[in-house]
């Protein structure tokens, strides 16, 4: 029992240590990524652009639900005109960064883990090392940077589409006043306090999710079972990390 506990402890700390050393090496190769901007563009496409559909569709639905729920609550107090504020604040402060990051972890994070894991199991990573090309710089660094760039953009698109979803339900279907919806939103949402903090959140989430995804892929046991486990771990660990970090960041930003 004690031995098992010790073994778990050692493996957990080993994992943690490996992931930080890994990050250090990857970051040391970031300058090279600028030189190889073509790689970065193609990663931005596969990580960012290909995630757009799920982000846009989910954003619209989340916005519509917010519009519906917000209206039902607000109308009792005769404050239905504030719907725009409710929808916009919920999205830019919380739901935009968090839900977009969760979707990003499921869509792009799992793909990254599986891709790098398969490269490892087919000896492509080893082959690169043997050709004196550092896979951490060549394969991992552009993916990490692409994740950090793509995430805030995706979260912003999610929030923007969500606002239109709320508008569609609130103004289009439930008859909230068009002008009040936008003007109240404009006066209540602060650029620095709300929007920028949301952007900072999503940059942090993008970094953490992509870090977990590329590390799990690189650290995987190169068998089909190992890759499937690593992919699952990516989604589970990054979802937990997003939610935990969201609480911490919210506590710091909006105290």
């Amino acid at each position: 029992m004690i031995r098992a506990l010790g073994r778990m402890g050692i493996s957990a700390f080993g994992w943690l240590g490996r992931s930080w050393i890994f990050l250090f090496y990857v970051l040391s190769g970031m300058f090279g990524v600028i030189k190889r901007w073509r790689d970065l563009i193609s990663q931005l496409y596969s990580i960012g652009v290909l995630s757009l559909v799920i982000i846009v569709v989910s954003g619209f639905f989340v916005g519509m639900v917010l519009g519906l729920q917000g209206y039902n609550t607000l109308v009792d107090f005769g404050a239905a005109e504030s719907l725009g504020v409710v929808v916009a604040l919920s999205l830019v402060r919380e739901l935009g960064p968090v839900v977009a990051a969760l979707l990003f972890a499921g869509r792009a994070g799992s793909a990254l883990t599986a891709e790098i894991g398969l490269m490892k199991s087919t000896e492509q990573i080893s082959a690169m090392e043997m050709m004196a090309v550092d896979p951490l710089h060549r394969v991992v660094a552009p993916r990490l940077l692409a994740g950090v760039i793509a995430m805030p953009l995706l979260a912003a698109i999610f929030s923007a589409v969500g606002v239109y979803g709320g508008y569609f339900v609130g103004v289009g279907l439930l008859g909230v006043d068009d002008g009040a919806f936008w003007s109240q939103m404009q006066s209540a949402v602060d650029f620095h306090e709300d929007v920028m903090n949301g952007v900072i959140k999503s940059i942090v989430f993008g970094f953490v999710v992509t870090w977990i995804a590329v590390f799990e892929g690189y650290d995987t046991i190169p068998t089909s079972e190992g890759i499937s486990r690593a992919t699952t771990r990516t989604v589970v660990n990054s979802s937990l990390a997003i939610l935990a970090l969201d609480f911490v960041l919210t506590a710091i930003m909006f105290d």
Partner: protein
Amino acid sequence: MVLDQQTTEPLVRAEGLSFERGDRVIFDKVNIEIPRGKITAIMGPSGCGKTTLLRLIAGQLKPKTGTIFVDGLEVPRLSRKDLFTLRKRMSMLFQSGALLTDLSVFDNVAFPLVEHTDLSEEAIRTLVLMKLEAVGLRGARDLMPSELSGGMARRVALARAIALDPMMIMYDEPFTGQDPISMGVLIRLIKLMNDAMHLTSIVVSHDVKETLSIADYVYILSAGKVVGKGTPDSLQTAGSEWVKQFLNALPDGPVRFHYPADDLAKDLVSGDRS
């Protein structure tokens, strides 16, 4: 004088090399010397650590005790930077070919040139086409790795391995799973490359006939030790019983056909199912 010393000294020297994986001893104080300009075969049963030896030579793994010199450099003590500099002068041909699946055949062969040289696009194109011509696949340059057969993938990997004109190529099980024709092609290519480019080749394999046909010197490994070494001819005549069983693929010998068990007659009448 210096030149003399350089040419006679073995290119790779493993001294008292020990390596363990978990509780399993892979190598136990093994000494191996790989002469320059020759084809040296490392043979042995599956799981005896042949591929591990290549990874130790390449510095992808570190020995537990003992050390390895490659061209006078002590591999386990090299910094990551120096190790990468050394690796530009050696190549490894992986069992699967290990081609980068998102690049075409042409780009795979061009990869080391693009990464490590400042050559113009035109010069790289010329070099790549020449390397592909050498392995007979110039016409396949626009194919993707998924469109190649196993033998073709290995030949492309060989073209990639010689792209930077290395001093040494390590072949990891180059003959496994090949049909007779592509096997013959690979054997010829390995021999041809070695002689024409003055390479040093290390061939890890358990395909006895094919390997012995091109090897200048052979090491046979088993259970973490070197159990036989010498030229192919001397091993056939002077090797131990075990070596003879291995080289001639005899079903019975020091390595028994039967897994240890009780007496058959006793076992049959006992009726015990466990």
